[in-house]
């Protein structure tokens, strides 16, 4: 266990460092984030005005923009984990990866985590600067950044496990891109990336709460603008529970997948 954590940490560090080396490339992609936040500001400004209300779904306009900054930063930091596994399986590169002294899923997950943290921080820094210029600061408690960091980290692990499950289906399916698209679009809509869950119709909200998607995006973003230790505890608990369940699923699928591998020559 201790050894695995040390190995994961080393892989994540290498992935983060290699992403830091291309920080210019990462930053260039944040232009899109600025455009989308500007459009969101216009959309929600019009919505608040037409609703003649200062608060919608428990959020003021300023909180709404900061909420959307976090959700966009999370969503846009997603690495190509499922596609990477798909390519590894299809090209046979998996045979080489299996020689490494670290379990293949753990290697993929750690590498994706390292990469994603750098991307998230770059996205969040740009998004925060843009949002600050657009709507100014909001009443942020000192605990909010800590809650955000912890829950975002757990959300990344959970999302990474989701990508692993999809990527591992490459052992059976011709192409996993369709599955990945369904997964990412579900997490976009049901995760509350574009519209907070408080504004969902009641029937949808009660259904979505039983799925992992809100805990990938909505949970961390909501806590950032509405920090509350009780909700933080609940979210961390639910994220951990889903991580345990999905770890079990990954282990099961990976075990089946290993039985299908046959490597020849060198």
């Amino acid at each position, binding site marked *: 266990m201790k050894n695995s954590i040390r190995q994961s940490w080393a892989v994540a560090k290498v992935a983060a460092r290699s992403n830091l080396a291309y920080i210019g490339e990462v930053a260039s992609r944040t*232009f899109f984030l600025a*455009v989308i936040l500007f*459009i969101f500001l*216009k*959309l929600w400004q*019009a919505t608040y005005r037409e609703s003649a209300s200062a608060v919608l779904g428990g959020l003021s306009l300023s909180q709404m923009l900061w909420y959307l900054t976090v959700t966009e930063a999370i969503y846009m930091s997603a690495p190509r984990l499922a596609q990477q596994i798909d390519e590894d399986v299809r090209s046979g590169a998996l045979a080489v990866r299996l020689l490494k002294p670290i379990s293949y899923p753990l290697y993929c997950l750690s590498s994706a985590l390292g990469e994603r943290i750098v991307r998230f921080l770059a996205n969040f820094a740009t998004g925060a600067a843009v949002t600050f210029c657009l709507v100014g600061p909001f009443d942020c408690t000192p605990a909010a950044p800590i809650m955000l960091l912890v829950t975002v980290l757990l959300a990344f692990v959970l999302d990474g496990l989701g990508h692993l499950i999809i990527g591992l289906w490459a052992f059976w399916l011709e192409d996993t891109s*369709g599955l990945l698209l369904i997964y990412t679009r579900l997490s976009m809509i049901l995760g509350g990336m574009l519209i907070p869950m408080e504004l969902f*119709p009641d029937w949808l909200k009660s259904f979505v709460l039983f799925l992992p998607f809100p805990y990938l995006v909505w949970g961390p973003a909501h806590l950032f603008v509405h920090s509350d230790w009780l909700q933080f505890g609940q979210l961390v608990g639910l994220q951990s529970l889903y991580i345990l369940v999905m770890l079990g699923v990954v282990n099961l699928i990976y075990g089946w997948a290993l039985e299908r591998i046959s490597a020849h020559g060198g």
Partner: protein
Amino acid sequence: MWFSKILSYLRLARAYIKLNWSMQMEYRGAFVSQALAMFLNNGTWLAFWMLFFSRFPVIKGWEQADVVTLWAISAAGFGLGNAFCWNLHNLAAMVSRGELDVWMLYPRSLIPHLALGKMSATAIGDLAFGYFIYIVMVRPDLQHFLLFNLLVVAVAVVFIGFNLWRGSLAFYFGQAEVLSEQWFFAMITFSTYPNCLFDGWMKVVLYTLIPAGFVSGLPVEALRDFDFSAAAFTWLGALAVLISGAASFELGLRRYQSGNLLGMRS
């Protein structure tokens, strides 16, 4: 004279489309899955707007049907423009790498050969999606449907002209792939949000630098109010974008330097 010239170019377009279509049909499974994936992707965005309008029925005079029309016209126009002229989407990269040589060997003008050289399965998914939601969700009468077709072609012309604009950047700046990509993202993003959200200087930008107003503004107005002047202005704008795009390409072409690449078109 000019009539026979137009007929000759139409025959050329038919020949390219036939050839590219048969190439796509060689990989029928991949073609269908890519087109379906785009269908699903657009469907997710539409789901967001349904959620949004279920909560806020009117935003600055726009209702749910207007946003469905917006998505129908922008997806179908983008699909038509890019499905058969996909090479223009990657024009900046082709110019930077000196890959135009092979296209310069053909008789007739360079732009039609270059544009029609590649077909996109995902853009065909966009085209199908646009028509599907317009027919199923808006349920137009015959007059509106005919006007819709006319506007879809105009929007396709806007996208072809815009692709020439951004692709031509590479003639003037050398490496312009990132710039061209960011400009494209801005255009797509502004084309898929209600035009009524923007006013003042932003409106000017949306009818000049980022010509999304000819996608998400005038065509929607034309269809909603059955307004022929809005349709005529859409066409005028589309032709202006196309002519200026072709002019910037032809001017830039004088600065083009061959990459001396040896290659074979398959």
